[in-house]
């Protein structure tokens, strides 16, 4: 356990080192926040209460998206590195280590997400709050529930990308599948439009898929739409997906590990 805590702290520090890059990223998030916020304002002016949000909630959704984009790694993260290690055979060394491969990368990714929540989340949200009337959670309880939802979102995001990375044991070149996975994450997380605005069956499907746990669910918790029993079921939805996907990762990992032995690393 101490080992994984140390890996987690190093994951945080690794990203905290690049301060200029962080500031550059904050700037970019803010620019995109502005552009998207104005498109939402135009839409919600003609269709007030679309998707169950009022104008203020819709604009807040935009800035939450910019704040969480890096935290739940919608554009991808560690998987490119792991795929490189799988292709080069370095992963054989990783498997020799007295640490579990999945837990090792999970700890590292949680450390990274922690930094991105602070470094890439707080400032864009503050910038959005300066220029737009954003909605802020009314009680500490909502903040706590929101942070829990974000944490579960981070774990689900990791579990999905771990599966993507393991596909490299069979595909060798992972560029294509990494790209498709981040496409799914961006579209089905609600990053482009809240999933409650998606039409008919597409909306139902999108809200049931695990990617909705990366932005839509935490945002709804933040906006106070989910309280009481609905809050419990939202967090339960995330927890179930987290367990299922981490479990799938374990299964694929054991199948893949056997494959490494066959290849001789």
């Amino acid at each position, binding site marked *: 356990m101490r080992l994984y805590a140390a890996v987690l702290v190093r994951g945080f520090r690794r990203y905290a080192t690049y301060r*200029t890059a962080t500031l550059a990223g904050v700037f970019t998030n803010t620019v995109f926040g502005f552009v998207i916020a104005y498109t939402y304002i135009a839409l919600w002016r003609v269709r007030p209460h679309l998707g169950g949000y009022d104008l203020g909630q819709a604009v807040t959704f935009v800035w939450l998206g910019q704040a969480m984009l890096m935290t739940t790694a919608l554009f991808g993260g560690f998987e490119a590195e792991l795929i490189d290690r799988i292709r080069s055979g370095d992963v054989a060394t990783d498997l020799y280590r007295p640490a579990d491969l999945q837990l090792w990368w999970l700890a590292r990714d949680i450390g990274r997400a922690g930094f991105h929540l602070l470094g890439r989340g707080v400032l864009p949200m503050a910038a959005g709050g300066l220029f737009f009337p954003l909605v802020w959670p009314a009680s500490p309880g909502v903040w706590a529930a929101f942070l829990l939802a974000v944490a579960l979102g981070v774990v689900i995001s990791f579990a999905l990308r771990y599966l993507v990375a393991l596909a490299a044991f069979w595909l060798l070149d992972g560029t294509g599948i990494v790209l498709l996975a981040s496409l799914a994450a961006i579209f089905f997380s609600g990053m482009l439009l809240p999933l409650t605005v998606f039409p008919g069956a597409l909306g139902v499907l999108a809200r049931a898929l695990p990617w909705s746990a990366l932005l839509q669910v935490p945002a709804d918790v933040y906006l106070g739409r989910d309280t009481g029993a609905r809050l419990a079921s939202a967090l339960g939805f995330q927890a179930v997906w987290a367990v299922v996907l981490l479990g799938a990762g374990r299964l694929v990992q054991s199948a893949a590990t056997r494959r490494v032995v066959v290849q001789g690393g």
Partner: protein
Amino acid sequence: MGEVSYAPETEAVGTDAGPYAARWPLRDRLREAVAGCRAYLLIAGMWSRSTLTYRVSFLMTVVGNACMTALDFVTIAIIFGHTRTLGGFTLAETAFLYGSSGVAIGLADLLLGSLDGLGRRVRDGTVDALLVRPVPIFAQVAADRFALRRLGRLTQAAVVLVWSLIRLHVAWTPGRALLLPVMAVSGAAIFGAFYTAGAALQFRAGDAAEVQSSFTHGGGTMTQYPPTLFARELVRGAVFVVPVAFVNWMPALWILGRPEPLGLPGWTGWLSPAVALAVCALAGLAWRAGLRSYRSTGS
């Protein structure tokens, strides 16, 4: 990266100008430009061949690249499923803006998108290797890891543009028909200038690469939507400060027969090529300044 064999084929540039160097500076510039283009094509060709080796992966990345931006259009389509007009623009008109902006940034991204990678090379010290080769460094960096998959994005934007042209009822005149390709080329040049300026910045601050995407991808996203959505100050900034408005807004509004957002005269749409030339010149100066200030990591 393996050793590249273009060096022996290409003449050393700028060193063999001989007695004509002083009398024919323009000729030297032209020769350098031609050599640069040739090197660019050779390097880009090499990278394309190497990508095509993994055919399935290549196809997946082309499709993925097209889908990435197609999802932006799906978003626009969902928005228009909820409303007939957005900021006074119809779906076909917005698709026209989306397509023209997408073609411009798609072209720039295909040709110069690799400039993004300069910061990484500055950090790991491999810029030095590029500097000793007898090929203009701009061509080498611009063609480095040339990504043929970016054709996906360009194609997707072109399809939407053509679709919008079929759906729109534009009273075509020779002027309007001429402005269409002029807009695409000028827009690509403006985004190309942003890529170049961003790369120039990376000579000094390699970590700041992401700032560039605020202007390229941020500008691209903004100009997909009608200017009437945005606050007046933001539009003013897009016209006078970071001139993304000239990528498509100004010429497209003239083609669509709509008033300019700031009440400027209609002919400002024809200023796009001039604006493109101006920002390209500025980006060229920035590139030279960046290159001159480069300090090797020594590794």
